[in-house]
């Protein structure tokens, strides 16, 4: 089993007070945890790669926990989440897909059993590539006020033989959400959708 080799981490936190409208109190907070690892499969086609998902689980948990800490330490204050990956140029998109299970599992675990599928995106790109990580409500994907995204990236990553892994969490709806749809207060919480 390949070892997870970390080159660098970046933790980013955004606090949004307003966007031209009433000032939110408390402000909306979004946090992103990014980790740059060596891609054990870069440089050639490897058929069997799925074992690496298990190797990534401890890292996923650590990243999810760092987000909760960055957002104030209480898992109950987290309302939205998302995940993503950028694969360096000597890898393939499928290597980014290795992050679905460990990244999603980690956030559900740390948040105490969130119900909604974790929105995600991924791509192959060079150093400095930006990724718009989609965000939805942790218990009901259709909550319209929580549809959001956080742009992440690192100037010098991913290099060709690296993968940049990302998890994001938010503490609430868009700062001036007002376009209707299912509200967080109306969640039935049975199917992860509504």
């Amino acid at each position, binding site marked *: 089993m390949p070892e997870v*080799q*970390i*080159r*660098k*981490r*970046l*933790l*980013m*936190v*955004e*606090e*949004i*007070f*307003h*966007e031209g409208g009433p000032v939110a109190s408390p*402000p909306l907070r979004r946090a992103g945890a990014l980790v740059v690892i060596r891609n054990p499969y870069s440089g050639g086609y490897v058929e069997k790669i799925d074992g690496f998902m298990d190797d990534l689980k401890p890292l996923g948990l650590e990243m999810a926990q760092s987000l909760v800490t960055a957002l104030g330490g209480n898992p109950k204050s987290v309302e939205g989440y998302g995940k993503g990956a950028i694969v360096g140029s000597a890898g393939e998109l499928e290597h980014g897909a290795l992050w679905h299970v460990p990244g999603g599992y980690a956030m559900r675990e740390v948040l105490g059993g969130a119900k909604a599928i974790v929105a995600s995106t991924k791509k192959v790109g060079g150093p400095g590539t*930006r990724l718009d990580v989609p965000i939805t409500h942790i218990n009901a994907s259709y909550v319209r006020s929580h549809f959001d995204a956080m*742009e992440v990236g*690192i*100037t010098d990553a991913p290099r060709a033989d690296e993968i940049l892994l990302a998890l994001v969490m938010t503490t609430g709806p868009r700062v001036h959400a007002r376009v209707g749809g299912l509200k967080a207060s109306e969640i039935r919480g049975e199917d992860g959708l509504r």
Partner: protein
Amino acid sequence: MNAEMRAAHPVAKIRKIATFVEETHTEMGRKIAPPTRRAAAVAVIANPYAGQYVEDLSELISIGEQLGELLTQRAVHALGIAGPSAESYGKAAAVGENGELEHAAAILHPKLGTPVRRVLGKGAALIPSSKKRGGLGVVLDIPLGHKDAAFVRSHFDGMEVRIHDAPRADEIMVAIAVTDSGRPLARVGGLTKEQIKGEDGLR
């Protein structure tokens, strides 16, 4: 507050604050232990002078003083260190398209440094800075230098920050970066931090 009071004690109208903490664990396969760490705190504020020429920039000068304290505290807190443990620092600002470069200068230069140094305990060296005017998502490269001796070569560095939705035309983005270390695997000689005399801010 009436206009006169506002001029005496202007408060930055902050739309958002972003913090970034970066840790480097390896370079070229070599382990870096402990990892080098740096943090930046960035505020996006309303530009009170957007869209007009104003001769007296004292409101922004005062806002610079306020942000010097707030952003340095945020950066130090993000690193999880005591202020005096910081090793290098830097500052930068990006003015939205309806402002002028001098607005960045008003924030950065007259009064921002004193509270930065208060939070960090010392800071004999000049705080290296950069500024520009730009649109949303503009990249700021914050220059970094050792806080007590500008000639410490291992600590010459820079940290890139950007916020995809800032600065809007009538906004200013203000950034302060603080580190607890120099470059990873620094090895091009020059003055080392152990050799700092710390008298003139240079060596």
